[in-house]
């Protein structure tokens, strides 16, 4: 089953990569942002499986983005891969440090404390004149190992980079879900004391998940900064975190691929809603979320499961 899933995911990846050659620019740029945000959602799924909802993922997203922008401004570095890795690493480092604090909290207290941390960063960024205050500042066009494309080619190159990063991240997180530490997520959600009695440290498990989700959100933010070409403090505002939680509910936490499908669906839906109902686009988004919760409580990902289940039932 897992084998078949991987083959399906790889073919979807190849189709998505090949599609860049025929699709119009606006779809490619929308998909680039969507898949970069999908990395953040993947990080939220890692936490979600252990019963933790972070309302402060924007903290890592923003750190990843600002790391790229500041590094580019200070040193003139433009290599997309290096910038992204440094963005992810700085967010991961922050996640590691705040993890000592956050790993002790659960439920609403976890959500609110992570929200508080991201809002403090927001407040600092808005008041920091040297970091551009509310305007933020722009990010130079990235290069790829010395290759410096322009316009259309830059768009496609960045899209392929995002796809490659997403594929590697999805593969590694999938492997993590199958590992002992990953598989213990649901027991942690159900009953922590039992997990402790098995001889595992719950706070260490949660700390690991926090670092993974911070790394992913940082890389997502770094890629988004490169794709948008601009960073601003709103990347750290709690509505950004809320959006990621929204996409996670839409996607479901069953497996890794729905994170990207859900993110793409969300961005497309928002663009569509904005074009069709400029005044009421939130209403359309809200209705879709409501319908998802009512009819697909496990998210878009559960659609695949349902199909599979039905096929099995039909088979003699």
């Amino acid at each position, binding site marked *: 089953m897992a084998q078949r899933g991987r083959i399906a995911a790889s073919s979807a990846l190849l189709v998505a990569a090949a599609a860049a050659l025929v699709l119009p620019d606006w779809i490619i740029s929308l998909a680039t942002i969507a898949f970069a945000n999908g990395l953040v959602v993947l990080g939220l799924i890692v936490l979600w499986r252990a019963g933790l909802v972070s309302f402060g993922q924007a903290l890592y997203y923003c750190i990843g983005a600002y790391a790229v922008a500041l590094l580019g401004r200070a040193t003139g570095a433009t290599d997309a891969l290096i910038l992204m890795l440094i963005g992810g690493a700085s967010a991961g480092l922050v996640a590691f440090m705040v993890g000592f604090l956050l790993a002790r*909290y659960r439920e609403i*207290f976890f*959500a*609110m404390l992570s929200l508080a941390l991201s809002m403090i960063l927001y*407040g600092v960024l808005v*008041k920091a004149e040297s970091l551009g205050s509310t305007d933020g500042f722009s990010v130079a066009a990235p290069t790829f190992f010395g290759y410096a494309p322009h316009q259309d080619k830059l768009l496609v190159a960045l899209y392929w980079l995002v796809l490659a990063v997403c594929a590697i991240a999805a593969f590694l997180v999938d492997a993590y879900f199958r590992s002992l530490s990953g598989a213990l997520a649901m027991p942690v959600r159900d009953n922590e*004391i039992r997990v402790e009695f098995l001889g595992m440290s719950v706070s260490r498990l949660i700390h690991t998940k926090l670092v993974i989700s911070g790394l992913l959100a940082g890389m997502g933010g770094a890629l988004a900064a490169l794709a948008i070409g601009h960073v601003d403090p709103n990347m750290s505002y709690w509505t950004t975190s809320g959006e990621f939680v929204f996409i996670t509910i839409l996607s479901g936490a069953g497996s890794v691929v729905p994170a990207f499908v859900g993110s793409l669906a969300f961005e497309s839906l928002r663009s569509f809603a904005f074009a069709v109902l400029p*005044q009421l686009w939130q209403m359309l988004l809200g209705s879709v979320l409501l319908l998802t919760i009512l009819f697909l409580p496990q998210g878009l990902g559960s659609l695949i499961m349902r199909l599979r289940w039905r096929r099995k039932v039909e088979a003699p």
Partner: protein
Amino acid sequence: MGPGSYATYQPLLAAGNTEVGELILSNYDLGLIVVAALLAAASYWALKFTRYGRLLTAVIFDRETAAAFGINVTAVYTITFVIGAMLGALGGAIMAPKIAVTLGIGVEVIVLAFAVVAIGGMGSIEGALIGALIVGICRAAAVHLVPQLELFVIYGVMALVLMIRPYGLFVRAQPRRI
């Protein structure tokens, strides 16, 4: 109707002012304090001393055991949700004359409400009271004294409280469930 905002200041003006020494206080504001205090007392009484309040406490403590004792858990949840929605609506209604009513005024309030609950502790009415006072006073003090901190003082205070009291200020010790 539409995305424009409304000003509904008439009740605020009609209520008039009271002068206490040099201070001019709006009667409407004083009324708000009285209404809030009465509602807090009423909720406290309802939660601690009525049959329904005790049923609710039992359901929150352990949903399955409560159901096994014959409590209609779904009904309790529904009624509680309705009461919560009514309190929320009342809060909006009595605040309306003091602000410009527009779409999305609830967005900031919901985060502040969660901050109050996290500071006070879940299910604690005295915690909600103290939490709301802490949030309100810190915000007002920051705006006057250190405007640089205005944007995140509430979150800073919340983070500080949670570092010292991980489940909020007024929370009873919870038994470990194995």
